[in-house]
């Protein structure tokens, strides 16, 4: 039944100077945004990608979120997605590294009728396999992994309106992954307006009201309860895009950062009593260094300067400079300029973003999927470009430089990161608006190691665990980037002899590491 696609022939090793390169390939998937003359905003916002080992064969598989058709019917929006061209797609990785489309066999062809945006993954029922949450305009849905290679569509965690990025995290440390859903705007087809003179263009977000994000609590018995209001999350009205999770104040509880478009960014501090407090302004991450808002798109929450504290990177539009905030112990300093990132990114527009160590030099690099939001920006601002190649900025001791990868320009949106081939080097998959995804397999000259954490008292993914080795600190999470979900495993550069894991709840565990490659670590009592 499975259709096999071998893409070895289209794989090309990019010869670049220096120690790092990507091998590129693609998948037989075309994202369908169905653009219209009405310039409906969702058309330019998708799609997402998730990396998950859905069948537990030890290899990461790729889930791609499709757009769909979108037209204003006589009574309501028509968002039907029965045609296979509009399906989301699951690609299973085979032992030889090729990918097979298993969408129908996995039960994922029966997508509800909403316009797809992004995905989140995590083991919501602690049965050892990853489940899947899909966001979109007009709805969202949760698929439970049955553990036999198929998914079951549930009615849990319904998200009305326009959901974008989502994250699974155990915010109350009860051992069950909860769900945070970012929503973009209080918008629908009937309220669309045309913007731009003389060229029609997608409207700026300030033309529409914002909306609250959503938080669902996992009761551990298969049900998610909407705690948006009770938790305080609902009090903050935003224009959410990317979501990233980490424990910025190192109090043992995960905090949530939301990249907002065209307004202050949000940092939800976990108050450790089931409630969150929005504190971005006082923490120093709400604005740029000029106290200006910007078009926050994707977010990455990781320690770029190896001081053990998670920092924040936020992609935005051309001429705004990607924002990088260094965590200085509970508050942040804007360091886009001093890190060199401002000069590198000032002309770029970024979406999916990750802070991961691609070249295995012990410092996390910044990868961004790029493209302007306006497909006709070249007419409006001739100095800018709509399509841009994905960018990798290599981190040398806290200062970034361009990797100068000869990648083609494309309309990058979501991006997910993980070790596709279990070789200890990170790879990336970029979702392309209206196009085929780009699969980038890292080729580092230095070794690295990938750790699979398996929680026992903690959630089975070990989400929220902090892994430290050789001066590196990595937070275990699938969240971050834009519309996307990353490999749940943790990546470390080099060949550290041992690693310290601080599991959710504070239990510390030290493990000897055998070698490079893939290592599985169980939580010990």
């Amino acid at each position: 039944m499975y259709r096999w696609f071998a893409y070895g022939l289209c794989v090309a090793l990019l010869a670049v100077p220096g120690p790092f390169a990507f091998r590129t390939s693609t998948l037989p998937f075309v994202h369908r945004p169905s653009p219209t003359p009405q310039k409906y905003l969702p058309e330019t916002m998708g799609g997402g990608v998730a990396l998950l080992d859905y069948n537990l064969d030890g290899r990461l598989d790729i889930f791609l979120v499709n757009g769909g058709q979108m037209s204003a019917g006589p009574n309501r929006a028509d968002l039907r997605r029965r045609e296979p061209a509009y399906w989301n797609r699951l690609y299973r990785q085979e032992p030889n590294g090729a990918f097979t489309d298993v969408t129908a066999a996995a039960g994922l062809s029966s997508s509800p009728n909403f316009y797809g945006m992004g995905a989140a993954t995590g083991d919501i029922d602690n049965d050892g396999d990853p489940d899947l949450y899909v966001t979109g305009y007009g709805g969202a849905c949760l698929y439970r992994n049955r553990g036999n290679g198929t998914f079951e569509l549930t009615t849990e965690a319904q998200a009305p309106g326009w959901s974008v990025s989502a994250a699974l995290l155990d915010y109350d440390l009860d051992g069950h992954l909860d769900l945070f859903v970012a929503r973009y705007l209080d918008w629908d087809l009937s309220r669309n307006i045309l913007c731009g003179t003389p060229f029609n263009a997608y409207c700026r977000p300030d033309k529409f009201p914002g909306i609250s994000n959503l938080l669902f609590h996992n009761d551990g018995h298969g049900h998610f309860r909407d705690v948006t209001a009770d938790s305080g999350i609902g009090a903050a009205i935003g224009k959410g895009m990317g979501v990233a999770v980490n424990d910025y104040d190192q109090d043992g509880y995960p905090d949530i950062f939301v990249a907002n478009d065209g307004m202050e960014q949000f940092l939800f501090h976990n108050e450790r009593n089931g409630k969150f407090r929005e504190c971005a302004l006082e923490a120093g991450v709400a604005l740029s260094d000029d106290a200006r808002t910007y078009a926050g798109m994707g977010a990455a929450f990781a320690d770029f300067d190896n001081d053990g504290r998670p920092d924040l990177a936020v992609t935005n539009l051309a001429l705004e400079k990607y924002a990088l905030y260094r965590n200085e112990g509970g508050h942040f300093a804007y360091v886009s300029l001093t890190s060199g990132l401002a000069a590198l990114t000032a002309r770029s527009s970024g979406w999916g973003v990750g802070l991961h160590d691609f070249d295995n030099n012990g410092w996390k690099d910044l990868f961004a999927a790029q493209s302007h939001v306006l497909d006709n920006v070249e007419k409006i601002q001739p100095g800018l470009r709509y399509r841009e190649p994905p960018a990798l900025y290599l981190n040398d001791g806290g200062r970034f430089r361009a990797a100068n990868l000869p990648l083609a320009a494309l309309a990058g949106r979501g991006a997910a990161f993980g070790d596709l081939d279990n070789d200890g080097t990170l790879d990336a998959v970029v979702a392309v608006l209206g196009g085929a995804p780009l699969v980038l397999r890292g080729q580092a000259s230095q070794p690295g190691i990938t750790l699979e954490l398996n929680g026992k008292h903690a959630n089975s993914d070990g989400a929220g665990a902090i892994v430290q080795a050789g001066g590196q600190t990595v937070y275990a999470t699938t969240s971050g980037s834009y519309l996307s979900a990353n490999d749940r495993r943790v990546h470390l550069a080099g060949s550290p002899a041992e690693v310290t894991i601080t599991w959710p709840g504070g239990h510390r565990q030290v493990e000897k590491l055998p070698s490079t490659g893939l290592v599985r670590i169980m939580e010990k009592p």
Partner: protein
Amino acid sequence: MILLVLILAQTVSPELAQHVNAGLAAKAAGDLDLAIREFRKVVELAPELPAAHVNLGAVYFAKQDYGSAIAPLRQALALNPELPGAHQMLGTALLARGAAAGAIPHLEKAQATDLLGIAYLEAGRPREAVDKLEAALLARPADPDLLYYLSQAHSRLAQQLFENLRANPAGAARTQQMLGEAAAAAGQSEAAAQHFRAALAARPGLRGVQLAIGELQLANANYAAAEAAFRAEASLAPASAIAAYKLGFVLAQLGQSVAAVKELKRAYELAPEMPETSLELGKALAAAGESAAAENALLRVLQLEPKSKLAETAYGQLNQVYRKLNRPADADRALKSLQELRRPAAIPPR
């Protein structure tokens, strides 16, 4: 009233006096057509009387029939060139009919500064127009019409000067500079860059051109190219605070905090009243780790502009500087001030 006295002071026939009185009464009652008929009779009965023509012209003027007013007013002035009020009415009527050149001598005689400025402008004499309109503006500084005509006059004067420049064979560099500035103002950055390059080719040491090139590059976030241009301008004009400021600003964008501090300090010494310089200096000092000096520079911004967007940035920076200096109470105060300044733009909870 003066005209009436003039007529009645002379020995006139009862018929003439009757028409004069009837015309004045009709005018006072607002029946201008009747007044015109009566004053026409007066002109027929006493064509040698300047006041007769003035009265007829004045009624046409009141009726805003400037075309008809011109002839009787001219006739009146032909009979008596010093007739009070007639010059202003005739000048105004001519100006209203588009005959600005003809209006000018009458408005000069009447010393009608504002109308004279407009007449000069319409007659293609913008320099004199600027002088007269500036003088008129002293008395009525908020007059929207005066402001409009003065801006028009300045614009035409600039255009005229540019045409003179263009016609000058030795003015190629400045011509290209001006064309570049116009293109830049119109958002045509590529064309602007070409003109600026041509200006430099004609005169390599021309001041202001590198600054303009730097601005173009900065607007497109081409920081390295902007740095080169600003550095060249700073070299040409070492006493230019704006060149030093721009160079410092772009060095900061390039992450060169120490070099940025050096240039921004120089800019500050050249023009200490420029709040932008103090702000960028404060930011660069903070980035370079000189928190105490950064505090001073940022407080200087707040002295100069306590409520502006620059103040918002200064408070945001002070919040971070104070936290680095382990002064949480000061940091909280700076944050509160930032929040207060931003409050009007805050999105209300729903």
